[in-house]
């Protein structure tokens, strides 16, 4: 394998992992606050169709991305509506949202099936992108990917290094105690649910604006569900979430390359890898001890109701 091919592969792997990373970041942010929203697939699809449709109509990628964020936040707000005032079961609500999103996006997108969009152009950083092997992968990507990295950095710092992040973790661990200490649990959970869904919507928009600039039904092909698993695999830590997402992207490209090189590992076995890794992580997590700081937020998926 020559160096140009390897550089191309790294470049492709980073692109492949980014929609997943964005969605996983959204899941992370929400789950840290104790909000378990299983509707990621539907939200991501709605983000994808919205981004594509608005970009096509307005001619602006930025407008499309912003619209996708807004639609994602709206879907998050819908989830909040169902689980907070209406007190519906969060698991059922999330699944309903996933199905709703899938159906609605097919309806909205039916007029856009044969349309092609000019994808978001690569913004190569002049001298750095010429570096061998990593130059193209790290410094010749599109602006939305750089934005995703910036968001990841911001979220990571906030969650792990600021007081706000600590309070958020408290809300996710034990909302009763946080509430008694004066933290406004419900508004915080609502805000994080919306923010998380907005990030997922942006992940969907990355697919339809930069990755494959077209609209096709079932465009996300299960990435929303994979993101949910990725966050578990990564133990609810930002750095690990990013690593897991990009590893997933890397493995999917590697799978294709291995076929070409004649290594006869069944592609089905290779595509099983992320899920097997998740299972292994879950088994490891369920035994406490060394991994105790990587377990789920204590109140994940439980509705919190103010008493009195």
């Amino acid at each position, binding site marked *: 394998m020559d160096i*140009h*091919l390897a550089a*191309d*592969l790294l470049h*492709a792997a980073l692109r*492949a992992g980014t*929609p997943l990373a964005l969605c996983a970041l959204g899941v992370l942010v929400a789950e840290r606050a104790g909000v378990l929203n299983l509707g990621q697939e539907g939200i991501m699809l709605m983000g994808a169709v919205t981004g594509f449709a608005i970009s096509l109509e307005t001619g602006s990628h930025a407008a499309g991305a912003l619209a996708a964020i807004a639609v994602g936040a709206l879907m998050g707000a819908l989830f909040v509506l169902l689980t907070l005032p209406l007190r519906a079961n969060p698991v059922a609500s999330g699944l309903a949202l996933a199905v709703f999103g899938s159906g609605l996006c*097919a309806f909205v*997108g*039916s007029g856009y*099936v*044969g*349309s*092609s969009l000019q*994808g978001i152009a690569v913004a190569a950083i002049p001298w750095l992108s010429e570096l061998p092997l990593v130059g193209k992968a790290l410094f010749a990507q599109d602006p939305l990917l750089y934005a995703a990295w910036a968001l990841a950095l911001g979220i990571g710092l906030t969650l792990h290094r600021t007081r706000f992040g600590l309070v958020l973790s408290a809300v996710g661990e034990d909302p009763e105690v946080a509430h008694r200490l004066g933290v406004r649990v419900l508004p915080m959970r609502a805000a994080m649910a919306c923010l998380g869904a907005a990030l997922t919507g942006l992940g969907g928009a990355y*697919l339809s604006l930069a*990755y*494959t*600039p*077209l*609209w*096709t*039904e*079932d*465009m996300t*092909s299960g990435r929303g569900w994979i993101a949910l698993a990725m966050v578990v695999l990564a133990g609810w830590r930002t750095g690990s979430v990013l690593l897991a997402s990009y590893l997933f992207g890397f493995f*999917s*490209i590697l799978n*294709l*390359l291995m*076929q*070409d090189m*004649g290594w*006869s590992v*069944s*592609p*089905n076995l290779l*595509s099983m890898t992320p899920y097997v890794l998740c299972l292994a992580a879950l088994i490891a997590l369920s035994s406490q001890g060394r991994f105790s700081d990587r377990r789920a937020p204590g109140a994940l998926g439980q509705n919190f109701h103010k008493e009195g």
Partner: protein
Amino acid sequence: MLSELGNTSKPEPSNRRGVSSQRDSNAPAKRARGVLLAGLLLIHVPLAAQPLKVAFVHENPVGQGGWTLSHELAREKLQAHFGDAIETTALDKVAPGGDTERVLTKLARSGQQMIFATSFGHMSGAARVSRRFPDVVFEHAAGYTMGPNLGTYQIRAYQGRYLAGFAAGLVTETNRLGYVGAFPIPEVVRGINAFTLGARAANPQAEVEIIWISTWSDAGRSREAAELLASLQADVITHHTETSAAVQAAEQRGVWSVGYQTDRSAFAPKHHLVSIAHNWLPIYRDKIQARLDGRWTAQAKWVGVEQDATQLVGWGGQVPQEVRERVLEQRQRLLSGALRVFTGPLFDAQGRQRLAEGATMADEDLLRMEWLLAGIGGDAPR
């Protein structure tokens, strides 16, 4: 009060019952005519009001712009062609397996008289359900199982593939042709082999390289595979998947693309070579007409260039005129019978001879073709 209801005409005097016989001496003849007319209408109305109910079942959503869309385009034209004689419905996203059986059973029970299952994955479901409903006509596309009320139909898309491969062989400069494949079912393998034979006929140095992505509809995977093929120096990329992502990826890398199933040129405005489009109308028209005329029998119906069922559409602007002319020449040879796509000797990837020198391949062998020609890179996944 009666008087307030608009009394422009005075009501009849007392004995209204006898009015008609007083006024009309031709009453018996008129009555007879009325009865006859009513009788004719009564017979006629049920005949006219009972269009043939035809249902279409698709595996993938229409909203992916590929195989299913090609069927739906034909269905629209069918409705226009037959007018009130048929009434069509269609269902997409019917997955192979349990879902297929459930949906087909429901359609048969609800009065559908002719059901087309348009995906290879529907084969076993269609076979099972057709045995339970012997009065309903079942047709299955792209498969090989048949029954007393189960026919099959397929387009000889391999002829279109051969012609497109011929064009690819002429335009390639690196002599590497990339193929994004989904699953190694006979239709896909036939297409790959035909494309390769066409390319080699035009350019003996041309090599085909396949990457299998094990999915019909993941646009991202299609793109990744196409980009990898481009990185591996392929300068013509084609696909056998639902989405246009491979064509779009080829365009962004500045290499030729060959679309499949529908016209994909919108996704490659500059560097498109050609698209191989499926035209299902001749097959559907003939099968439905046979059923309407009461002469339907279970047949394996294969239609190719002779009825324009496989079309070359969306020729790219940068394609040299000479290439187009040479391809059309080959098409003429196919039409006249001077050229048959699968002509021996043919050897598979393991070195076994599959077709003797000078022999041509029979339809049964074409239907079950699951072996790739020797010299194609990228073995089929087991």
